[in-house]
């Protein structure tokens, strides 16, 4: 497993009529994934504290950062929907180039079981590609993007 990063990135929700739009920013590519996880965790459980009970290694490939973000977000949705596991945080994450695939994501997710009494707050259908484009921030020092989650 490649080394992790302490870049947690940042997120905020923006107006969208029928779904949820999220703006992500980070100093490094890895931070965007941490920020996406944090945003989705907030959608699922709000500010409730979660205690990690298990971990899962996630390995994804894709030609672009946008593809990796969509795949990563949909991986989280699958874990919640099918396995009742909510992401708590990223214990480790690394984005690297791959000659065949383009980009590779290696991540270690800390997970907590969904509280059966409370459940989760939202049913996320999928992370979409809508208007998804990772760009450099204006000062060139970091990365930012917006994505829409269908709920």
């Amino acid at each position, binding site marked *: 497993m490649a080394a992790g990063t302490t870049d947690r990135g940042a997120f905020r929700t923006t107006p*969208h009529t*029928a*779904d949820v739009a999220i703006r992500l920013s980070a100093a490094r590519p890895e931070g965007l994934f941490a920020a996406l996880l944090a945003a989705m965790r907030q959608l699922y459980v709000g500010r409730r504290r979660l205690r990690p009970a298990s971990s899962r290694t996630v390995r994804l490939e894709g030609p672009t950062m946008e593809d990796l973000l969509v795949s990563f977000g949909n991986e989280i949705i699958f874990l919640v929907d099918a396995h009742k596991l909510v992401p708590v945080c990223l214990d480790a994450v690394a984005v690297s180039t791959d000659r065949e695939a383009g980009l590779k994501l290696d991540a270690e997710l800390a997970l907590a079981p969904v509280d059966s009494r409370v459940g989760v707050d939202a049913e996320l259908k999928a992370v979409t590609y*809508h208007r998804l484009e990772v760009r450099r921030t204006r000062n060139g020092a970091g990365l930012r993007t917006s994505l829409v989650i*269908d709920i």
Partner: protein
Amino acid sequence: MRLERIDGSSYRIPKQGRMRVDGIIFSDVRLLESLRDDPCLDQVAAVASLPGIVRASLAMPDIHWGYGFPIGGVAAFDPDEGVVSPGGVGYDINCGVRLLTTKLTRADVEGRIPHLVNMLFSAVPSGVGAEHRDFVLSRSEMLAVCEKGAAWAVSKGYGEASDLDYIEDHGTIPGADFDVVSDRAYERGKNQLGTLGSGNHFVEIGYVEEVYDADAARQLGIPEGTIVVGIHTGSRGFGYQVCSDSLEGLVKVARKYAIDLPDRQLVCAPVKSPEGWRYLAAMGAAANFAFANRQMITHFVREGFGAAFEKSWHELGIRLVYDVAHNIAKMETHEVDGRSRKLCVHRKGATRSLPAGHPLVPPAYRALGQPVLIPGDMGRYSYVALGAKNAMQKSFGSCAHGAGRLLSRKAALKATQGRRIEEELAHKGISIRAAGRATVREEFPEAYKDVADVIRVVQTAGLATPVARIAPMGVIKG
């Protein structure tokens, strides 16, 4: 975005830039006002740029911002030159509505609505992650559901064979193939069949408040004062995963077909390509899951009413009026420039609307036309209409599917801060049970457009003809 007025109920976005055809918006001045800051009109223009699109990129009066295709979008593609796009169907494949009628009147349910609502809330798993703990489909059962749809549910005792006559496509999309569906989709959906889900999905008890065509209402079984039940749900996690998988797969082959996309969510493949057929087969599987889902929930409603009134549901006369899909892509035959053509019609947040005499309308309704079900919000009203001839000429036999959201969920929560929506509804005589803490506020009536405005345009444009208005009495939401 420049709009040209065509008439009192439609506007044109003239072909420009990458657009291959015009955009046509069915709307009026009042509804267009609500679209001023909504990017959905840009989405109509983006859809118009897709290869093989026929006649125009269409928008129904309840249009609002989606992703890729707008919600309320309709587009038809030539099967040889054109494309099929999962974004033109949506994640909730075959999200749709069905309407049940009964022999009950308002007098029969007087004072009993809260009990009925509680009963339905117990009988129909609803809410985020709703699932059955004790009902899990095996892979072979899931295969049967995906291939047979509502017919599978009937074969298992959920309803009667006659129900199938009153479902779009008899509740089974042909060509569905479980083999092209991923393990993940199976894992997400295996214990969700027969569940409502969350958000704007609902089971709603209402009464026929006003009738505009007494003879048609009588033939549909919904004369004034009748108690009816609406069910709105789709393919649950199974369908969402099918769409996700399809999008990720098509993104990987996008370069192969060199289709220029203004938005990646419009990713598509030629209809006649292996990838195109694969998507239609997977979509069909999910659509059939949704038909089976609504059929099972119908059974739970029937049983619940039966228990509440201590009579069989047959004695209560609970029968299916009709079931329509509003997120679907289908191969249909339409007349274009005087010639009959087979087209791949995408409806994302739009309902099929067939006129009297159309062979796909159930024999019992053929002289009337296809029932078009247009739910509003939980505080005001919904409508039942009949498909009209103009819909075939103007919109590939399509119509609006609902009221359309006005406020985002976040804006709805902000607007309802400090308000007790359940009490406000109770003062109007409406009982509600919702599984989610925030659902009632996110779905409060004013978060939606007034569906009466949508119906006005539907009628003026000749897409459908209103038959009756239904007022809510009891609502179960996820």
